[in-house]
C-alpha cells in the first residue's frame, strides 16, 4: 500500500473529525410523537407584560423591605457575604443614581432621598438578549426577558450589555448563602447569570409577581398592549418616567415619582 506516514496521519486526523461530526448528530433528536406540550390552564396571559411602580405609596423602609424579601425568599436569592459577589433581583437605589443625568438641583428633599425600587426592566428592545451568544437569555412572546440557567455559559456579555445593572453573576457557589430555601423553586449554580424573571413561575399558576402581591397596591402588573388593563389606565392618569429612555431599549417598568397630588 503506497501510503507514507504523513498521508496516514492526515487521513487519521480527517477520520477523527468525521467521527466527531457524526457523533454530534446523535444530539439532534425528536420528541416522543404521542406526547404534547401546552401552557397551564390557569396561566395569566398578556401580549406585553409591564409593571408600574407608584413610589408615592412606598412610605417606610418596611414597605420596600417587604417587597424585596418576598422576591428574594421565594426565588432563593442568596445573601453573599462579599459585596463584590452580590446577587440581587430587586433592590433600592437613590434617585440620582437610578436616573443618572435626570437629577435637577433644588428638588424637594423627599424626592432627593427617596429610595427607588429597581429590577430588570424586561426591555422590549433588550440589549442583553441581543448580545447573548447562546440565546440563554431571550425574549418571550409576552415580553418577558427570560434566563435559561441550563444554557448560560457565563460569558457575562449580557452584564456588559445591560444599561441598568439588573444582572448578577454567580461568582461562587450561592447555595450555602441561601438561608431557609424555598423547596418549590430551584437554586442556581456557580458561573451563571441571573436576574428578575417577572415571576414566570407564578404567572403559570395564575398568580401575579410576588413583589406586586406584597406591595399593597403600590405596584401594578398587566398588559401594556391592552388599553383597558390596570397598568394602562394608571399610566393614562399619572405622569410616569422610565430609566434611561434615551437608549431606545423600551423598558417595561414605569415609575410614578410624585408631585401631582400637591398641584
Amino acid at each position, binding site marked *: 500500500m503506497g501510503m507514507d506516514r504523513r498521508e496516514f496521519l492526515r487521513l487519521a486526523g480527517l477520520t477523527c473529525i468525521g467521527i466527531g461530526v457524526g457523533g454530534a448528530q446523535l*444530539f439532534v433528536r425528536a420528541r416522543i410523537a404521542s406526547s404534547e406540550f401546552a401552557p397551564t390552564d390557569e396561566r395569566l396571559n398578556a401580549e406585553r407584560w409591564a409593571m408600574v411602580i407608584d413610589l408615592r405609596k412606598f412610605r417606610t423602609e418596611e414597605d420596600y423591605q417587604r417587597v424585596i424579601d418576598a422576591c428574594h425568599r421565594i426565588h432563593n436569592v442568596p445573601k453573599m457575604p*462579599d*459585596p*463584590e*459577589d*452580590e*446577587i440581587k433581583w430587586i433592590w433600592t*437605589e437613590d434617585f*440620582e*443614581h*437610578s436616573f*443618572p*443625568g435626570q437629577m435637577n438641583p433644588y428638588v424637594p428633599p423627599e424626592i432627593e432621598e427617596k429610595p427607588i425600587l429597581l429590577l430588570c426592566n424586561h426591555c422590549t428592545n433588550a*440589549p442583553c438578549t*441581543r*448580545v*447573548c*451568544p*447562546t*440565546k*440563554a437569555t431571550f425574549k418571550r412572546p409576552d415580553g418577558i426577558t427570560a434566563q435559561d440557567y441550563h*444554557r*448560560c*455559559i*457565563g*460569558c*457575562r*456579555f449580557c*452584564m*456588559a*450589555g*445591560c*444599561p*441598568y*445593572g439588573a444582572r*448578577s*453573576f*454567580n*461568582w*461562587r*457557589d450561592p447555595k450555602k448563602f441561601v438561608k431557609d430555601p424555598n423547596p418549590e423553586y430551584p437554586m442556581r449554580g*456557580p*458561573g*451563571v*447569570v441571573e436576574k428578575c424573571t417577572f415571576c414566570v413561575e407564578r404567572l403559570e399558576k395564575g398568580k401575579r409577581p410576588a413583589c406586586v402581591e406584597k406591595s399593597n397596591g403600590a405596584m401594578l402588573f398587566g398588559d401594556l398592549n391592552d388599553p383597558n388593563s390596570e397598568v394602562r389606565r394608571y399610566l393614562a392618569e399619572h405622569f410616569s418616567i422610565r430609566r*434611561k429612555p434615551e*437608549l*431606545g*431599549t423600551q423598558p417595561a417598568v414605569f415609575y410614578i415619582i410624585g408631585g401631582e397630588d400637591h398641584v
Partner: protein
Amino acid sequence: MFEKALVGSKRYWTLIFVLLGIIFAGFITYLFQLKIGLGITGMSRDVSWGLYIGQFTFLVGVAASAVMIVIPYYLHNYKKFGRIVILGEFLAVAAVTMCLLFIFVDMGQPMRIFNVILHPTPRSILFWDAVVLSGYLLLNILIGWNTLHAEYKGAPPPKWIKPLIYISIPWAISIHTVTAFIYQGLPGRHFWLTAIMAARFLASAFSSGPALLLLLALLVRRYTSFDPGREQIQSVAKIVTYAMIVNFFFFLLELFTVGYSQIPGHLHPFKYLFFGLEGHGRLVPLMWISVLLAVFSIILLVIPPTRRNETTLTVAAASVFLSLWLDKGFGLIIGGFVPNPFERVFEYWPTLPETIITLGVWAVGFLVLTVLYKIVISVRESVGYEEVAH
C-alpha cells in the same frame, strides 16, 4: 518538519521547561478557579470583565498585525519581507491561541463552551468573534506551515495556498473589527460607545503587534544563527511609527469629542482613568505611564537617528508594546465598567490567582511561539534562506 522542535540546545530546553513550569502553575490555579468559581478573581457585579478579557482584546490586535508583514510581501512584492513573513504568521498563531484560552478561562461554565456552536446566534457579536478567530487561527497555521514546508523541501509553495493568503488579509482586519464591535455596540457603556473604536483598535494593533515582532526579530538574531535582516527590521520600525502616530491621533480625537462636548456620562470614564473619580484612582498611574510611553516612543521613532539605532529602537518598540498593553489590556476594559450604570464608582484590581492564570496563558502562547520559531530557524539553518519570487 516538527522533529526540528524536538532537538535543540540546552538554552532551548531550559526555556521550554521554564514555560512549562509557568503553564503548570497557571493550570493548577485554573483548577482552583474551576472549583471555587470566578470569585477568586478581582471581578465583581460592577466590573464584570477584567484582566482576562483585556488580554484577549490586546492579543487579538497582536494576531491581526501579521497582515502588516503579509501586505508588503504578497501585495507589493517587497521581497525582503520573505525573511520575516513566517515570523509574523506564527506570531499570529500564538496570539490567537492565547485569545481563545483567555476567553475560555473567563467563562463561568467552560464545560458548556460548545453551546456557542450548538445554539448559533448570529445577532451576537461574540458568536462572530468565535467564528473569525478560529478561522484566522486555521488560516495562519495552514499558510505558515505549508510555505515553510515548501521552503524546507526547496520547492515552491502549493498553488492553493495563494488564495488563502489573499483571504487572510481582510480576515485579519475582520478579527479586530469584530472584537471592537463587542464593545462599541453596547447602549449603556459610554466609554465604549464610539464609532472610532474599531479604527483605533486596528491602529493600536498595527503598532503593538509589529513592535513585538521587531523585538522578537532582534532576539532571534541575537540568539540564533538566523538573521531576520537589518533592512527588514527598519521597515517594521517604520510601520510601527506610522501606526503609533495614527493610534495616538485617534486617542486625541476621543479626548476632543469627550472633553469639548462635556457630556457627563462620556466624560466620567476618562476622568476616572486619568484623574480619579470620587476619590478612586487606582488606574491613574498606569494610564499616565501609558500616555507618557506613547509620546516617548513616538519621539524615538520619528527622529531618524534614534529609529536607525537598534538600541534606541529596542527601547521604542518596548515602550510601544507596554504603552498599548496598559491602554488596551487594562484601561479599555475597566473604563467601560467604571463608573457603573448607576454612575457609582467601584474599582477593580486583579488578584494573585487571576494573575497566575494570566501568566499561565501567556506562557502557553510563548511555548507555541518558541516551538514554531525553533522549527523556522532550524529549517533556515539547514537549507539556508534565499529570496525567491513567489
